[in-house]
């Protein structure tokens, strides 16, 4: 299958390794990856911060960049939710009528489990790993146990369970800046819960949340690393 990758601007700049992992993983599973070069940003930050007219321009740009692709994959659950759930709202709020359906974007674990029908992707990762279900993956997309099924099939991986895992890490986009104190109070509790599970690595399907959690873990010199799930699934034990 020919799969178009939407890497998400955040990953493009800060976490290119996640994009490379998705490419490596999909190619290992026998698929061809395309990277439409006109892609930039889905408009999530503008939309959720209240800059709706600006978000509409980005939603239109997204549709143009991915026109003609019928299998689009992204390693960002929040961007997938923005396109699938919010792009139509954004365009309607901008006064457009007869809004066409948004491009069919799948979050990576949905794509693997639902579209490709695989849970064992042939990965090996001999470490103790905790999975954090981000709000957009768990609530907005309803990812359910797909990420965990994928993780359970990874060779050598030991799962650690985080208490109160479904509670928000406190990132929330510009919330982390506008309400920095509340945001820090939330991530402090998240990190306390994570450390109580004593993992080597915390993974998720949103690098934005992981940057937040990882930023606090790093500030504490906790020694616990954060890693996008794709980078675990791409690992073949090398």
């Amino acid at each position, binding site marked *: 299958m020919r799969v178009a990758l939407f890497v998400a601007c955040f990953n493009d700049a800060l976490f*290119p390794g996640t994009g490379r992992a998705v490419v490596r993983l999909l190619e290992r599973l026998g698929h061809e990856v395309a990277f439409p070069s006109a892609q930039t940003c889905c408009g999530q930050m*503008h939309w959720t911060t209240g800059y709706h007219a600006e978000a509409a*321009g980005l939603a239109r740009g997204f549709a143009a960049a991915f026109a003609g692709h019928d299998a689009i994959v992204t390693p960002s659950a929040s961007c997938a939710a923005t396109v699938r759930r919010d792009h139509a709202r954004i365009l309607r709020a901008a006064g457009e009528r007869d809004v066409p359906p948004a491009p069919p974007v799948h979050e990576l674990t949905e794509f693997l489990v639902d579209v490709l029908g695989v849970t064992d992707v042939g990965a090996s990762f001999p470490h103790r790993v905790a999975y954090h279900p981000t709000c957009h993956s768990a609530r907005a997309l309803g990812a359910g146990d797909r990420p965990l099924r994928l993780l359970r099939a990874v060779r050598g991986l030991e799962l650690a369970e985080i208490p109160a895992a479904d509670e928000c890490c406190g990132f929330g986009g510009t919330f982390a800046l506008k*309400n920095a104190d509340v945001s820090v109070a939330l991530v402090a509790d998240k990190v306390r819960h994570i450390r109580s599970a004593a993992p080597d690595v915390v993974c998720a399907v949103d690098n934005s949340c992981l940057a937040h959690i990882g930023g606090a873990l790093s*500030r504490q010199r906790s020694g616990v690393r954060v890693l996008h799930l794709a980078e675990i699934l791409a690992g073949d034990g090398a």
Partner: protein
Amino acid sequence: MTPRPKFAAAARPALADTALRRALADTAADARARRAAAVAELPDWPALRAAGRAVKDRTLLNLDACLERLERAVVDAGGTVHWAENAAQAARTVVRLAAAAGAGEVAAPAASVLEEIGLDGALTAAGIAVHRTGADAEFPAGARVAVTGVDLMVAETGTMVALERAGDVRRCLTVPDALITVAGLEQVVPDRADLEVLLQSVSRSAGERLAPVVSAWTGVVAGDGPAAFHLVLVDNGRTRALADEVGRAALRCVGCDACLHVCPVYERTGPEPYGAPHAGPIGAIRTPQLRGVASAANASLPFASTLCGACADVCPVEIDIPEVLVRLRGKVVDARRGRPVPTPELAMMRAAAWTLTDPHRYEAALRGGTRWARLLARGGRIRRLPGRLGVWTDARDLPVPPARSFRVWWRDRGERP
């Protein structure tokens, strides 16, 4: 009077209050557990939510007709209906009615609508003492006039219904002279079948099979209870909210508080930073809807959420709270667009959108931003960001962006065999 501070500033004392933090966490955990158990007992909670939503949507669609029907039923039952456009008018009406009944004091159990209209201040200014009966205050033995809120009103019969844990409203129903009930326009439901649906969903959502004390009162009964019954129906921004296609969903709220107890922000700040009368996720919507976003404090409320969505998952009438919050954020931003000098945030967001709508500009910015960020790195991480971004690095590191972005790697990789 100094204006109420913005949410972020108002939250700081609460965040630092150890005892409050512990109490809030305990209350939330308890409420969540009770709600989960009460909901799990039902064969089909999703169906009940959908039914509750449908009742409210149908009501709001024909709100005028429904309220007229309510008014007729209340009048037929011997009561009087008063319409108040705003909070001040509602408070004046209640004061006038209480004074006309000759009351020097009134019993008034806590209710958010009474707080909304600023009743205590208005009564006190008129020389009428308020007995805020409730958890730690006795019902005043000699009270002849009472003012209450209400949870639901049935248009068909003109019946008022209150759901309570302790029964403070119930004790008001036997005052001899006058019972004055204040209600928001949206609290009406068409008929008894609708009431049945919402009684179930509100109770379960609040963690009960049925609220411990359910009181119902209708008009005036000769020889029993108060000699006069007054219903004050308050608009105060509700009609305006109703005209907003997305924002009107918030008028479905039945006040069960389930969203408060699952909200990670509320669990750490408590009600204070939201200002009165509504707190938590629904308060972050209702206060700006009722009072507008002109004040900095009210304008900050829609931003007091991570948009995690936990509230929308539990709401018994399926209010998509994050969606409404995002719409209100748009209103706040739009109200500021007209300023002669753009806010720094507006300038930044415009520049970002201009950059992001063109792949070449985007890539140039990516290169520049990466170079800049890499200069800030110390020991493999960014420990201090300048300017307004510094609040991030006050407590959190930032990873250093790798020299090569994904798109450059992709290009360098070239065509695959």
